[in-house]
């Protein structure tokens, strides 16, 4: 039997729904942490660019990102892959919406700030 066959057969026997759910919970937590960090960093960059352009600070979008961070522990209580997917959709949907909205509205300003840094 080839080594790859053995590996696939082993996965087919041992990667049960409970193993899948355990690894999914860990992954969901790590993923949400990464997404929250990424979104916060992006909002900080946008805020820095806004400050240079004389505009006010971002508030609501920070609130939405923190709300998604607060919802993240609920992923631990998902009982099956379907429930997990629904929860995941809400949490990551929120983060993606904030990132998308910020990309649409702030990218020109951020670019201008970065260009000015390059010139200096």
């Amino acid at each position, binding site marked *: 039997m080839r080594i*790859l*066959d053995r590996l*696939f*057969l082993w*996965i*087919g*026997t*041992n*990667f*049960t729904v409970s193993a*899948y759910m355990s*690894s*999914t919970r860990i*992954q969901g937590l*790590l*993923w949400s942490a*990464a*997404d929250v*960090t*990424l979104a916060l*960093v*992006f909002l*900080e*960059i946008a805020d*820095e*660019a806004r400050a*240079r352009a004389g505009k006010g600070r971002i508030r609501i979008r920070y609130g939405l990102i923190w709300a998604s961070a607060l919802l993240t522990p609920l992923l631990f209580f998902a009982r099956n892959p*379907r429930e997990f*997917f*629904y929860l995941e*959709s809400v949490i*990551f*949907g929120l983060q*993606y919406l904030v*990132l*998308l909205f910020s*990309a649409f509205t702030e*990218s020109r300003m*951020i*670019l201008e*700030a*970065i*260009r*000015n*840094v*390059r010139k*200096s």
Partner: protein
Amino acid sequence: MEQPFFRVMAVSWLLAEGIFLVYARWAAGAVRGEEKLQVRFVTACAVLFILLAGTVFFGEPLFKALFPRNRKMDLFLYRSSLWNLFCVLWVIIEGLIILYIARIDRAMGGQEDIPGRFSAAAVLLVVLPFAFYFLYQAQLVSVVGRYRLGIVAASRISRFFIRICGFLWIAFEWAAALLGLRILRRLCRAERIVP
């Protein structure tokens, strides 16, 4: 990907990632003063996206019409191939986004691109995940056929692929966040220098 909600979310995430990729590409060029029109790139992405979204929503009825005598396992393998394709596409797009963010970071640091290095990295980021996807799916089909595996065992193997992709997304997202932090630090530092 049998549930309509799953399909909608899969397509929405692909669209969102695609938009981020277009923005990252545009920004990486613009920072270097090469603000090229992205018409061709955006058109190609849009065509690919429409084809993929069409496959998600209409592929299964077409598959059933083309193979009316298909077994449950055939349908399962079709769904597995499609869902895993989406997973690998997210990995590829995230990888390319990081590459563009790294380009912005390098440009801010005054570093020039080494010719060919960026293209080589981009090609590798596309080819390697696709190769892995095709080999994995081919091995899955082969093992299912040769060892007469049932749907339960096949779905475990298929889900394991999603898990591998999942950990790649996480690694890429952390890489993007760290690069973002570097860009933020450069921006804040420059503020103190520029009057």
